[in-house]
């Protein structure tokens, strides 16, 4: 019996020795040439020690990028495709981290044979999940785990010691019909974590934003109004005055007590990797809690 099994075992060992490297070679390799169209993906890659071949930059945008990405090629983004597809293809990327904003472009990239994944979180929990997913895709699960542990600790510390929970109306855009951030938006989640009670009029929306009636603003009477208007630092005084004197809002506690603020960076609009810093800034500069 032993004599009969020996050749079989030997054959199996030889087969395993030959087959294993082949199996190992077949395992997916992390992409080498990566393009990050969102600041979240770009900064997460930088924190994981990966330098993308290009990052996206919207015209007039105020995206905050890690200093590690200083010399990385910038791809101008415009609606509806996002990057210029010829420019993108010339970079020969293995993978593009994109956003739903460029849905049409994502489809076109896919048709060009470029792999696209969408990671543009709208909540802090979503940012944590996406950080780990990006780490996994890039073969840096271990670094992603360390980064997540550090981020979670920092966020918990930033949320500590909240003494007041003021009612906050957080609005997107300028004009006479601004949209209100809802809890399922990035800014809404940040303000809630910073201790604010979001004024929403009980509205929910998949988009995370909705135009709500000024009658609700008068009735709910927010303590604080924060506007995210896509404007420049120089515009802050005139915009603050415009919002404060809005007939619909001028009698609110926010306007009466001079607590109408303008946030001109994108920290409340787009997911970032410096989450704890953003929460601390909201608490210190706006909520004062």
């Amino acid at each position, binding site marked *: 019996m032993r004599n009969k099994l020996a050749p079989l075992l030997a054959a199996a060992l030889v087969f395993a020795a030959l087959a294993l490297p082949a199996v190992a070679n077949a395992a997916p390799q992390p992409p080498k040439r990566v393009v990050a169209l969102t600041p979240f993906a770009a900064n997460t890659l930088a924190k994981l020690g990966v330098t993308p071949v290009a990052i996206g930059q919207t015209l007039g945008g105020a995206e905050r990028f890690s200093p590690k990405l200083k010399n990385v090629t910038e791809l101008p983004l415009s609606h509806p495709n996002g990057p210029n597809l010829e420019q993108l293809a010339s970079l020969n990327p293995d993978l593009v981290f994109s956003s739903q904003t460029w849905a049409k472009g994502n489809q076109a990239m896919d048709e060009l044979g470029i792999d696209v994944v969408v990671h543009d979180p709208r909540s802090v929990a979503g940012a944590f999940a996406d950080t780990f997913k990006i780490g996994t895709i890039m073969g840096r699960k271990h670094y992603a785990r360390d980064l997540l542990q550090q981020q979670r600790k920092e966020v918990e510390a930033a949320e500590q010691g909240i003494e007041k929970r003021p009612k906050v109306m957080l609005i997107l855009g300028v*004009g006479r019909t601004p949209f209100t951030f809802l809890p399922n938006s990035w800014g809404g989640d940040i303000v809630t974590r910073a201790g604010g009670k979001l004024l929403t009029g009980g509205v929910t929306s998949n988009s995370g934003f909705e135009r709500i009636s000024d009658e609700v603003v008068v009735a709910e009477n927010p303590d604080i109004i924060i506007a995210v208007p896509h404007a420049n630092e120089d515009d802050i005084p005139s915009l603050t005055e415009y919002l404060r004197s809005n007939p619909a809002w001028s009698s609110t506690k926010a306007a009466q007590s001079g607590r109408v603020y303008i946030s001109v960076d994108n920290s409340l609009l787009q997911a970032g990797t410096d989450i704890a810093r953003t929460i601390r800034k909201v608490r210190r500069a706006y909520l004062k809690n």
Partner: protein
Amino acid sequence: MARRAIVFAALVAALLAAVVCSLAFGAVKVPISEVIDIIFGNGGSPTDVQIVETLRLPRTVEAMLVGAALGVAGAILQGALGNPLASPDVIGVTGGAGFGAILIIILLPGSIALLPLTALAFGLLAAALVFAFAWTGRNRGSVGKVVLAGIAMLSLFTAGTTGLLAAFPERAPSAIFFIAGGLTSSGWRDLETVWPYFLAGFLVVLFLIRPLDRLALGDDVAASLGSRPQAIRLGAGIAAALLAAASAAIAGLLGFLGLVVPHVVRMAGGTSSHTYVVPASAIGGAALLAGADTLARTLRAPIEMPVGPFMVILGVPLFLWLLRKAV
């Protein structure tokens, strides 16, 4: 005559109903008895007083004024150009006002307080360019030339608007309501800025009603009766430009109203006489916009939706029904 009186009565009733609904309903429930007390200065809770006096009342007045202005602008343009497809779009006002507003929203957000004036200025500029091209060279002042110059100007300004929106997509949400058309709760602020343009537009229209009726007989007949067809067309164009640009400054782009309302009142009244069509279009336009705005802000309250689609929902079935009967 009796038919016109019935149509007038129906339009006035519709306007009254729309105004009452506009004042009585909103995202916040205010009892109708309290609304009446507030309107007649008999008090109410401070919050309700502010909602009715600062938000609903000015908005209702704006809806009536803008609806009337667009209805009249469409009526006189259709009469002056002898073209059933004429509306404020045709003389470039809508395209120009849209471009002016988007320019502020996208490129100069810090100057947002200037939005109504910029929309007004660009609307009037577009109309002035249309008149300048249409009233120079051969066939000056001809209907074809006015319409073609208007379409060219509309295309030019629309291209500029689209280009700005495509270049700054993240800023586009702020522009959606202006483009889709909608009233806001900005108190009396916007009206304080643009009321002289409404007044000037309506005054010019008063002097055009009879000349427009003569023009309807044809240029030659009108000339033989002592009228000057080109001057009437220019006057109608200027009045329509003032009314439509002032409307766009307050309520964004609401092209549909100016096109459809005059046809509806013409078909319902069975006459094209401007002594009937112009005031009936004013009342019909006011009723339609006040009603549509009430729907836009109450149907999914407290979410506010653009008023444009609601005007179409309210106006098109009636328009198609009358069109079927007329044909």
